[in-house]
């Protein structure tokens, strides 16, 4: 009979062996997630598991807000009411004017034969919390796939573009802010229509226009809005204001630093825009079709 140690001495594999096992498992997951994006299903399930804890964690802050509003004074409420009423009045006037101008613009566009602007739907979402990742600028909102959010939708607040939905889970979605280093957004200078691309500035909380010609017509306090040429962001949303322009004699390009227009790190509510209307197909697809057709033709000729 074989002599084996009694069961209470059995401790499984050594910690070092386990470390190698779990470290290689993590590295494999990292590579799969970073390079191939195959792990999205697993991520959605895990996010759903973490959701209750996240929801509970944001509850105390909401409770504080509720308690605070309960104890707000009568005078303050009256003042707020008056202010909001004045604001609503101004907005309603703007809205009336906007409707008239929109009708006029549509009419003019029809006259010159330009494509009509697409309708944009919007969903209001509440910010759950900022991402715990100091390497990226993200926030999480309480609307997800079940509420019809799609990846790639632009997110705005009352004063401008906040970011873009980059990942959608069942009950919440992840918004990458315009200040994130990997986020780029096509913009246009309001003053002269100059087009450029704004990149996130990372930890500084600013945006940057890189690779602008040193003599480009851009000045301090220029307002930047989305140009809409990318087909993702509707045109005309405020994005940023130019803070300063750094021109370097050694460099052919000027570096333009801008302040985001939206409160990317403030505010509780955001709007998720979505345009489900059909867009013309992307040129790449058309080109691919053509290539396929050509290949088909070549095959035909080969067959012949």
């Amino acid at each position, binding site marked *: 009979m074989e002599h084996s140690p009694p069961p209470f001495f059995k401790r499984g594999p050594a910690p070092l062996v386990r470390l190698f096992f779990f*470290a290689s498992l993590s590295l494999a997951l990292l590579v799969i997630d970073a390079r191939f994006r195959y792990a999205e299903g697993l991520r959605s399930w895990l996010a759903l598991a973490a959701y209750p804890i996240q929801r*509970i964690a944001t509850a105390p802050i909401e409770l504080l807000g509720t308690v605070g509003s309960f104890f707000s004074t009568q005078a303050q409420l009256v003042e707020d009411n008056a202010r909001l009423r004045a604001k609503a009045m101004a907005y309603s006037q703007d809205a009336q004017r906007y409707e008239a101008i929109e009708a006029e613009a549509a009419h003019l566009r029809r006259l010159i034969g330009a494509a009509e602007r697409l309708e944009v739907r919007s969903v209001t979402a509440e910010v759950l919390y900022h991402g715990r990742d100091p390497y990226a600028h993200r926030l999480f909102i309480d609307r997800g796939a079940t509420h019809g959010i799609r990846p790639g939708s632009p997110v705005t607040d009352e004063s401008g573009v906040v970011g873009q939905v980059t990942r959608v889970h069942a009950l919440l979605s992840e918004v990458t802010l315009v200040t994130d280093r990997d986020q780029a957004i096509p913009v246009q200078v309001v003053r002269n229509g100059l087009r450029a691309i704004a990149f996130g500035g990372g930890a500084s909380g600013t945006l940057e226009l890189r690779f602008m010609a040193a003599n480009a017509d851009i000045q301090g306090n220029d307002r930047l809005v989305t140009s809409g040429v990318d087909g993702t962001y509707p045109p005309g949303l405020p994005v940023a204001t130019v803070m300063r322009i750094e021109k370097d004699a050694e460099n052919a390009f000027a570096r333009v630093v801008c302040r985001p227009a939206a409160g990317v790190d403030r505010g509780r509510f955001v709007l998720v825009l979505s345009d489900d209307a059909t867009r013309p197909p992307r040129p790449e697809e058309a080109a691919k079709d053509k290539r396929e057709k050509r290949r088909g033709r070549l095959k035909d000729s080969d067959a012949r």
Partner: protein
Amino acid sequence: MLASSQILQPVRASTIIMSFALALFLNFLPWRDLRLMPDFVALVLVFWCIRQPRLVGLGAAWALGLLTDAGNGVLLGQHALAYSILAFLGIWLSRRILWFGSGLQALHVGAILLAGQAVALLVRVVAGDGFPGWALLVGPLAGAVLWPMVSWLLLLPQRRAEREQSI
């Protein structure tokens, strides 16, 4: 008196699970600057790996890491790798650390937490992100400062039972 010289009640599994749930809750609170906050899950994980290396090990660390990764929306496996290494260091050094008083224990734990943070930083730099500033060091150091309190709190359920027995 050293913490290791006390005779403690055996730990209940519910205590461990509750402590991890509480740590996850603290981590998911909407903090203003996350670099300055200690990683509570890492702290509790190191505690249990030092105290109960046979109950809490690399498997639990890895699962918690994955949950944190998904909850924070970072690369899947970043925290899993960091927590696995934290757990390994905790188990490896557990015999040594328990000989010290809480101040020196905190020093060891600070070093372990810094190692975990360094692993996370390495992963992100390899994945193409920039260095987010030296404030990154504050979190682990804050964790080390919190260590005496955390270890006192987490040992409380075991200790109270002992005192009742002795009366």
